[in-house]
């Protein structure tokens, strides 16, 4: 019997939660990226702002929470770089469709996925991005593809190639200490990683702040 690791379980749960969340995202994509950019000279500056907006839709967390105005951790930059290296063409296509352009109105993530019938590259890159935000770890799209197809596609399945493994893990790498400690899974659990917390003395004896305070900008 296949054992499921804690991380694999969390990955599955968060991917499901995020998929549900982006479907109900009400903020328009254009509103998310309509901000003054202090980084206009940087060739990837616009792409990163688009990535911020896409990430908000994918995770269900407000983009300004994921990428605050002053962002000392730069998680957005790190995850964008991972996705760009993994599959730059697919990433740019997703960003382009999501933000839209004159003559080509913005599309939702659901619409983008619906068009992703050829090789499902958008589907698995999107999963990688969701997992990166939620877990602070990078799961390569091709590894997620292998894991997804399992026995249906023996040639690409971890289940077939690692049949006798004690624990079936999808290969992944923690993006950075900051990406891990600030990852979204802690926010949606109203919790913090072991050994690191910004909460003040006595928090353990009190109810955590409301969930919305973790997922939306403070008013």
């Amino acid at each position: 019997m296949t054992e499921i690791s804690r991380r694999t379980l969390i990955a599955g749960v968060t991917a499901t939660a995020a998929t549900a969340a982006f479907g109900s995202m009400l903020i328009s994509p254009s509103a998310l990226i309509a901000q003054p950019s202090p980084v206009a000279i940087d060739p990837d500056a616009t792409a990163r702002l688009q990535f911020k907006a896409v990430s908000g839709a994918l995770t269900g967390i407000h983009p300004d929470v994921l990428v605050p105005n002053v962002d000392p951790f730069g998680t957005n930059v790190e995850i964008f770089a991972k996705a760009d290296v993994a599959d730059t063409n697919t990433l740019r296509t997703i960003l382009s469709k999501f933000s839209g352009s004159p003559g080509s109105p913005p599309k939702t993530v659901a619409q983008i996925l619906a068009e992703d019938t050829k090789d499902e590259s958008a589907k698995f890159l999107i999963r990688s991005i969701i997992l990166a935000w939620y877990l602070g770890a990078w799961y390569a799209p091709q590894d997620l593809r292998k894991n997804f197809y399992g026995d249906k596609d023996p040639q690409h399945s971890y289940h077939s190639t690692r049949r006798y493994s004690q624990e079936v893990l999808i290969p992944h790498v923690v993006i950075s200490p900051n990406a891990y400690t600030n990852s979204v899974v802690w926010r949606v659990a109203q919790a913090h990683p072991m050994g690191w917390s910004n909460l003040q003395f006595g928090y353990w004896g009190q109810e955590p702040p409301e969930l919305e305070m973790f997922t939306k900008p403070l008013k």
Partner: protein
Amino acid sequence: MTLNRIGAKFIGSLAIIMFLCSVTLTKGRAAGQAGQQSGAEKFKPPVCPDLSFEGFDTIKFAKITALQPNGISGLPCDAEAENGMNDARSLQHGFDYYSWLTFLALNSPANGAAIGPDAPTVWETYKQLPDVMLPNGKAPEGWVVSEKDPLVGANKQVPLTGCPDSEGKMIIHMDMEETYNEPFKSGPLFDQNGNYAVFVIFTNEAMFEYIDHNALYNLEGQEGFKDEVDFPNGSDGKAKGHPETTVGAIMIKASWKLMGPSDIAKPKYHIINGLLYRGPKSCIPVKLGLIGFHVGHKTVTRQQWIWTTFEHHDNVPTEEEVKNHVPEARVANENGNPYSFYKPACNESDCPVNQTPDGSWEPDNLGWNPFPKNPTFKSQIVRTGIHTKFNDSGTTTLEDDVKRLNDVFHKQITGTVWANYDLVTTQWPSGFPCAGKKSPGKLPDPSCTPFPTFLANSTLETFSQPLQRSEAGDRAPGVPLATSSCISCHNNATTKPTHNNARTIAMRSDFTYILEKAHSTHESAKENNK
């Protein structure tokens, strides 16, 4: 309610108001940030200076110097971004500009003159920690205002047995571990003469009055305090809903070096007279030179406080300077070692970098006396950090920009000892509107994302500086909750914990560790000395 009772209440209220008015007039509270007597025209009420500025090259120094007729003494009541922009770089510039104005205001002569010739400063007339948290939890003396020019220690040093004639001298309490051991007991810092660097903590009037009024100066008072600790805010009148202008709570931590004859001969330091108090049997006059200067300032828009840190240019070299052999060049050019805590051209085995000495760190156990003939240990310190980029299109780092600002201000005060002090930088809570929320303890991130993430002064957080570049590489330059960060550290501050009374636990203390130093009215003399 009967008429008599209403009348009695009215008369009672009137009496209280009259009493408060008389206290205010008597104590000259309107004298402002220096807590000085307002009788003379030269002492003005606090004025929050207009901080708006457009950039480093267009700072209007005439405006700064005109803040008060007698010189640069306008203490900022809050900070503003450069050009009103909200990107990280513009905000950082605004905070660093605020820090320089704060440094100049607090280090202006206490007698109201313009900053220039070295003289006792405004902040040195504030209250020192041991004069607030007294043995046996006694109430501190009220805020003292001086009819004449305020002196160091004017406010009001508790007389110590064996330490007479302290007027005009800052008492250095070597009987307190915090005076020579750095935060989290990470170790003492020794200069190249084999002397301890020593540390002092001061509060301004607003902060002291809050402690005094709420009886937070002893354990019993803290136990009886049922509200959330919430020190007064600074406010420049510009924040929405806060038209008031007031300085708010300020705390200062400074580090000193014991000055030898060669230090005094070269007037590069702010120097005052001090008394090195080591108990009733030892109180030694010393000359103290300022080497490090922290300011924490609570404002209405920065509930996590604004954290400024300066240090003397000759404390230590930076990591890059060592790599580029700057220390050796300075030795050649300046006919001797200019650094207080670094020996150039000393190899790693003889002079291990950023290390504490082995064994006991207590002066008595070490048999230490000022200027020991054969120092057993001399610190070899290199400044590391800040290693912060802005993630924008600019090509300069935070360090580059601070250096530029330092150069601009140094030119304005050239020829004074103050031109030898460098702003390291300013740490501030970057989350908005998070940083303006009262009761930050109830937020998901009470620290509101400090920026830069790490910040250390080489004399005050010597052993928890950011990682050296060679260690950090492309990684983050520090370890959360281990590498020095003003806000993240003070985010954990509480009142004094008690193990004797199960019904009372320590509570959040609004980003200050000062309240932890309170004593109990029931403590024995032995416990009070802990």
